[in-house]
């Protein structure tokens, strides 16, 4: 996010020297946000992803936000089928995909109608004018041609993408349908010219994906688009967005789901144990299964179960068998796993359960984001069954969260929940690739008869209160576990009241003890003062941008972001007490706020939003201003 402009409006538009190999003047911009929008079948997600990768290679900081419908491919040309992809890139540090795009590329009237009101005033709106006819206008729900009116509010640029693409691909042995499918690459070419993106990565990528005339067609139209940008009079100038100054190192683009998957694979390597992932597909979590399934050569086994009960049960079974076990799902599926997770608490086995949250209730809006599952994952099991919760806050952070979750699970012999969300899952950002040597190595150690006198499955490590992880195949440690109340130490079945109370207390103490391992909370801003803004999970970018923005307006605002939602860090209460006002923006009805209020009796103000969409920076700055102005 450009710091001074929470709305994503580029702050400097001075023409500078021409881009290399470019015959038109180029203006320098600090940053820009572009949204691609078209039919589900128009390849918008692909176009967006390619443009992101090129932008990353150009050295900009960036943030993306894909937003697509739940249908695979709703009827062409309808509002229901519109798929969007927004990318924000800049020469300075940015935190979000931007509230309002500066540029919209709309492939048809429905895409225009669904998105144009988000574009900043006088922003650029590029339309595929070939798709504007009475029929498609009607399908989109437009009565009249909207362009005349829009020309008042935006710089409307009309490009006949379909025609130009067809012209470019004449002579190839492709059907009309195949030809038309390439038009998104023509548009990509235009944009690459406009914003000075290199295209070789895309050409390489196309080479790996297609062959023959399809490959030829895509490359030809990409180049044709680039040439069109340079040649035509429609765009008087192109733009330069200089590379951002970011920490040195090797970077890549990564989405949250990919990072989770890689974190899972990495845990196996770093902890020297095989990984078992049991999952049932569900949007937006399925990609973690898909990605992990590609790495059998890491000794990783994935199991697509028949349902979520089987997914989690197989995972607990694998944990019993000594694997680094993990299951992944989204809200509706996670909820179905709660009964079994209660058993995992009782038998104190290590495993990781990931919930990539989506917008509900019920089936809700499966491809939209929300943070509404915190209380469900924390409390959704019957009776007292505490489980630690880790919430990653950026796509790349998902990698580290997965690694940490496994370490915690094994050290404390407990299930651990990782709480991601649809926004983190699908968004991408440049990610500083960690050096493998810098990652902690924690080889798993199982209980072994040689280390133990009389084996007691529920004897506890005095430090961590963890019980031993004794796995089948180990001679002398044969034992039985299960969900009935267990006797302290022996683990035998028993109904004694005192013992039942004691075991509840032990499990609680064990989980609370985990907070000892946390690093102190980092406070961004003064350690005490008027306003503290707290966040958790995928809202980090928006909150950071908003806080930076109001600070530049002179407000004294501090910020912390909680990664550990259970147990809470032990310094949290102290920090809360040092501020006059505390604001907690959440994409839910205020789950963390409820927990903090209950625990610390602090009047945490909750800023809630349950619209299936991330926070806009402006929503947050406004709330901070309001809080600042408020009496107490």
């Amino acid at each position: 996010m450009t710091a001074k402009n929470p709305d994503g409006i580029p702050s400097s538009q001075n023409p500078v020297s021409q881009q290399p190999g470019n015959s038109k003047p180029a203006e320098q911009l600090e940053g820009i946000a572009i949204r691609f929008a078209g039919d589900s079948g128009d390849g918008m997600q692909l176009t967006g992803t390619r443009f992101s990768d090129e932008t990353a290679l150009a050295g900009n900081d960036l943030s993306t936000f894909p937003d697509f419908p739940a249908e695979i491919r709703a009827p062409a040309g309808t509002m229901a089928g519109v798929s969007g992809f927004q990318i924000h890139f800049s020469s300075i540090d940015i935190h979000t995909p931007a509230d309002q795009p500066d540029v919209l590329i709309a492939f048809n009237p429905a895409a225009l109608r669904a998105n144009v009101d988000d574009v900043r005033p006088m922003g650029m709106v590029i339309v595929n004018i070939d798709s504007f006819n009475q029929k498609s206008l009607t399908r989109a729900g437009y009565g009249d041609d909207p362009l005349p009116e829009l020309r008042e509010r935006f710089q409307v640029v009309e490009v006949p993408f379909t025609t130009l693409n067809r012209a470019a691909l004449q002579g190839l042995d492709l059907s009309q349908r195949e030809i038309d499918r390439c038009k998104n690459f023509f548009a990509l070419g235009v944009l690459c010219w406009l914003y000075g993106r290199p295209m070789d990565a895309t050409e390489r990528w196309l080479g790996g994906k297609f062959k023959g005339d399809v490959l030829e067609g895509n490359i030809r139209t990409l180049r044709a688009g680039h040439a069109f940008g340079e040649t035509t009079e429609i765009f008087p100038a192109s733009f330069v967005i200089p590379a951002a100054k970011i920490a040195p190192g090797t970077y890549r683009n990564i989405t949250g789901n990919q990072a989770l998957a890689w974190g899972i694979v990495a845990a196996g390597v770093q902890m020297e144990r095989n990984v078992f992932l049991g999952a049932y597909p569900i949007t937006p979590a399925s990609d973690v299964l898909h990605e992990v399934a590609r790495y059998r050569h890491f000794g990783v086994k994935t199991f697509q179960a028949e349902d979520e009960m089987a997914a989690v049960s197989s995972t607990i079974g694998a944990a019993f068998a000594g694997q680094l076990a993990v299951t992944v799902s989204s809200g509706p599926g996670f909820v179905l796993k709660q009964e079994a997770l209660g058993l995992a608490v009782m038998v104190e086995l290590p495993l990781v359960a990931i919930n990539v949250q989506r917008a509900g209730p019920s089936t809700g809006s499966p491809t939209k984001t929300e943070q509404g599952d915190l209380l469900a994952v924390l409390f959704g099991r019957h009776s007292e069954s505490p489980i630690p919760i880790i919430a990653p806050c950026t796509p790349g952070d998902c990698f580290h969260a997965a690694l940490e979750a496994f370490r915690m699970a094994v050290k404390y012999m407990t299930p651990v929940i990782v709480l991601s969300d649809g926004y983190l899952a699908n968004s991408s950002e440049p990610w500083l690739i960690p050096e493998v040597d810098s990652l902690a190595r924690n080889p798993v150690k199982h209980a072994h008869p040689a280390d133990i006198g009389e084996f007691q499955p529920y004897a506890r490590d005095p430090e961590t209160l963890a019980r031993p992880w004794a796995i089948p195949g180990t001679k002398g440690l044969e034992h039985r576990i299960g969900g009935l109340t267990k006797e302290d130490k022996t683990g035998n079945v028993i109904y004694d009241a005192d013992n039942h109370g004691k075991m509840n207390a032990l499990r609680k103490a064990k989980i609370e003890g985990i907070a000892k391992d946390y690093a102190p909370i980092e406070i961004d801003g003064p350690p005490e003062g008027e306003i503290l803004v707290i966040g958790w999970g995928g809202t980090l970018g928006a909150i950071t941008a908003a806080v930076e923005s109001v600070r530049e307006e002179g407000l004294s605002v501090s910020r912390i972001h909680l990664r550990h939602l259970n147990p809470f860090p032990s310094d949290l209460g102290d920090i809360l007490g040092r501020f006059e006002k505390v604001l907690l923006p959440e994409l839910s009805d205020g789950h963390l706020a409820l927990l903090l209020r209950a625990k610390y009796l602090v009047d945490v103000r909750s800023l809630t939003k349950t619209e299936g969409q991330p926070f806009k920076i402006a929503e947050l700055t406004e709330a901070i201003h309001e809080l600042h102005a408020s009496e107490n």
Partner: protein
Amino acid sequence: MAADPALKMTRKEFVSDQDVRWCPGCGDYSILANVQRVMPELGVPRENVVFVSGIGCSSRFPYYMNTYGFHTIHGRAPAFATGIKASRPELSVWIVTGDGDGLSIGGNHLLHTIRRNINTQILLFNNQIYGLTKGQYSPTSKVGIKTKSTPQGSIDHPVDPIAFAIGCGATFIARTIDVDAKHMQNILKRAHEHKGTAFVEILQNCPVFNDGIWEDVQDRKSRAKASLVLEHGQPLVYGPAENRQGIVFKDGIPSVIDLAEDDDPIERGVVVHDEHPEASSYAGVLATLQRPDFPLPVGVFRAVEKPTYEAMLQDQVDSATAERGVGDLSALLHSGDTWRI
């Protein structure tokens, strides 16, 4: 399971130190005794054996076996076992479940475990009742049974566990009886030998809530007429010597014929039992043999070879490793497009 026949073990080694908590006279006692008696003969060291169960009287079973054991949650035992076996193919994994646990709440996991052909033994104790929750009818209870939840009699048509297993594509299917020690021990051994999911229905008496349900096949006197002992290569003949009967099939429909004392059953068209046809339809016909019109078949209905899930999974790991080398984390993190700053 690394079976080692040289290993000398005793029944006692498989008896855990826990008090057995079933009602007096419960059929589960004899099943437990038989399992404990067979285990030493299988040649699998105790530490490589895992018993997994759900919830129910029957599902208390693992506590009494001095092996690894996991008493899980209601209905999900096959899924737990899948995780164990898929990740550690060298373990011998036994599932103990009841007619309620396995066929009511757990029906879906039974289906999928069986069709995947995970190499485990599934012992389903069928007492046609929910024992642990004090006597409600189960999916195998007969229509009309009056139980706590069906004071006017049950109206659900029962499911037959064997027929269900066939519909799921089971590679090994057998039925045995709680009180028939020799038969059960033989079936348990066969189940263990089978590579793939071995589904075994064990007819079990619950003297407290559903007494005598299997009486005709349990009782030594009525058994010969009431049950048909399946033996590979032998004709489907049953009944006392002086009054033998045989089973013939016509267009997939079975019927009974009387055999004179000197009849050759095979000549009379009596079907010869074959455990191995690839098509499950032969076993499917057997499964329709039900009391009172037919004798109840006991023994191995079907035993065919198909690749097991865990072996194929391990193959993918091995072949991926052979093709791509052992995974290199740093290489993974740097794969695809990266850039240096």
